[in-house]
């Protein structure tokens, strides 16, 4: 089973790397993002880059957006490019196909974030280290990476559902975009429908937790939701019930 999941994930990566190398599908924008987040922003922020709380917002956001492009394509792309039926005619199980695609998307986002963090850290050290090794505290790194992973996993859970139902990649991306927008409006909804005293209460308790603990909890919550979504996607993706083209 793991072998099959890996086989599918590997194929997904080969496909995306081909695209990136040809600078299609966001190849250029990815270089820009790397330049900005990995090089320019650490250069400008200096040592404060290492402790900036902003990291906890833009890294997860960025990673999930990387994950989302890949996952939106996952099933809808195969359907649109007429490879889905042949894939389903192979001996790979439904579960291995779905898990392979989720794994590919999550790892892609995660690898991207981790690499960028590493580049940023190296840049800060080269520019501002003055011979000393500047570090990010381990709990902070752990919290950040968990949040990134949880976010990617969650987004891929939603994305795989959207992709399953969409006839084309474009359609998948549009639906997905609307859902992401709704998710981003969560704070607004929170402000609208939760009584002000309760809001204050929740916010103060959250800030008591500290950024790291809060991130870990959020990551845990997202992870749990993601698990439920993934299980549901696996249940739904069954040969005989999937629209082939």
């Amino acid at each position: 089973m793991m072998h099959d999941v890996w086989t599918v994930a590997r194929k997904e990566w080969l496909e995306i790397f081909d695209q990136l190398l040809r600078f299609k599908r966001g190849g250029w924008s990815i270089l820009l993002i790397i330049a900005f987040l990995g090089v320019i922003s650490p250069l400008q922020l200096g040592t404060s880059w290492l402790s900036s709380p902003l990291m906890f917002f833009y890294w997860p956001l960025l990673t999930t957006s990387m994950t989302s492009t890949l996952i939106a394509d996952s099933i809808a792309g195969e359907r649109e490019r007429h490879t889905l039926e042949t894939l389903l005619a192979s001996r790979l199980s439904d579960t291995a196909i779905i898990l392979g695609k989720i794994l590919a998307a999550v790892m892609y986002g995660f690898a991207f974030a981790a690499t960028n963090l590493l580049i940023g850290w190296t840049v800060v050290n080269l520019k501002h280290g003055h011979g000393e090794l500047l570090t990010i505290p381990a709990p902070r790194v752990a919290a950040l990476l968990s949040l990134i992973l949880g976010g990617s996993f969650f987004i891929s859970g939603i994305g795989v559902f959207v992709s399953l139902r969409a006839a084309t990649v474009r359609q998948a991306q549009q639906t997905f975009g609307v859902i992401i927008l709704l998710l981003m409006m969560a704070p607004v909804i929170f402000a609208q429908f939760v009584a002000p005293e309760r809001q204050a209460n929740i916010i103060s308790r959250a800030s008591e937790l500290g950024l790291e603990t809060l991130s870990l909890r959020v990551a845990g919550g997202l992870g749990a939701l993601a698990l439920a979504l993934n299980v549901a996607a696996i249940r739904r993706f069954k040969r005989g019930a999937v629209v082939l083209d």
Partner: protein
Amino acid sequence: MTVPAIRVQGLVRDFPKVRALDHLSFDVPAGIVFGFLGPNGAGKTTVIRVLLGLVNPTEGRTEVFGVDPRTGGEQVRQHAGALLEHNGVYERLTALQNLDFFGRAWHMSSGDRAARIRELLSQFGLWERRDESVGGWSRGMKQKLAVARAVLHRPRLVFLDEPTAGLDPVASASLRDDLARLAQQEGVTIFLTTHNLAEAERLCSLVGVIRRGQLLDFGTPAELRSARGAPIVRIGGRGLTDEVVQGLALTPGVGGVERDREEIRVQLVPGADVGAIVAWLVGAGVAIEEVRRDRASFEDVFLELVSSEGDKAPGVTR
């Protein structure tokens, strides 16, 4: 009796607007090339999808080597290879990566994979171009790659949905040879659909003809021809005017007359006397140069079967 490679019993598949398969029943023995023929929309592709467990039947039962693809789909697909309606190649991947992916999917060892991929790509003349992205390839080249993919893991059963579509005559002929060899020497069962009737006649030891999801006929190409193709004489000569042709059509023993360039094609009713027909023509002033007995071609038989008259023809099996 051994288990047939394929057994279809009372198969019905309804789509929202159409009954694609209508109580279809037939068996395909193992180790032969079976040709599944029928006009566009007849239901050929749907049958393949049902047999691979990609589409569930509305009614009826199918078995592939004794296994119901509905419940034992994994087992069926383990031993089957397929080239479906779309070639299904990954255009962003190279030829090598395409085959490698499917080799891994079927758990071929890396050594076996490498050797087999090399063997197949060389056989199809694609080895030199193995590292190119397939997206830039011609339709026929992609089709060849898809055939290679279908047989990569040495399946017992291969489904080929119009495999020679897009291939040049040389490539088609060599694919036919390969398929015949696979069936004869390696005992592989080949289930193929094609719109090329000459190809079906040459390659298939058994054919089934369907239209609107119903089986019209089933047997060897020779059986289909002898059961249906009325005997024909072709007559060439001078003086075959329209009046003569019209007169001839009314003569006893003649089922129908058609002009075919310089000649006429006379369909005989059973027991007709060719000598009397020739004598009639001579009497009508025709200078006969050639008289030749002929049989209906496989194509004629097919056309007769699937045309609407095919419904009324005797011996139609439902």
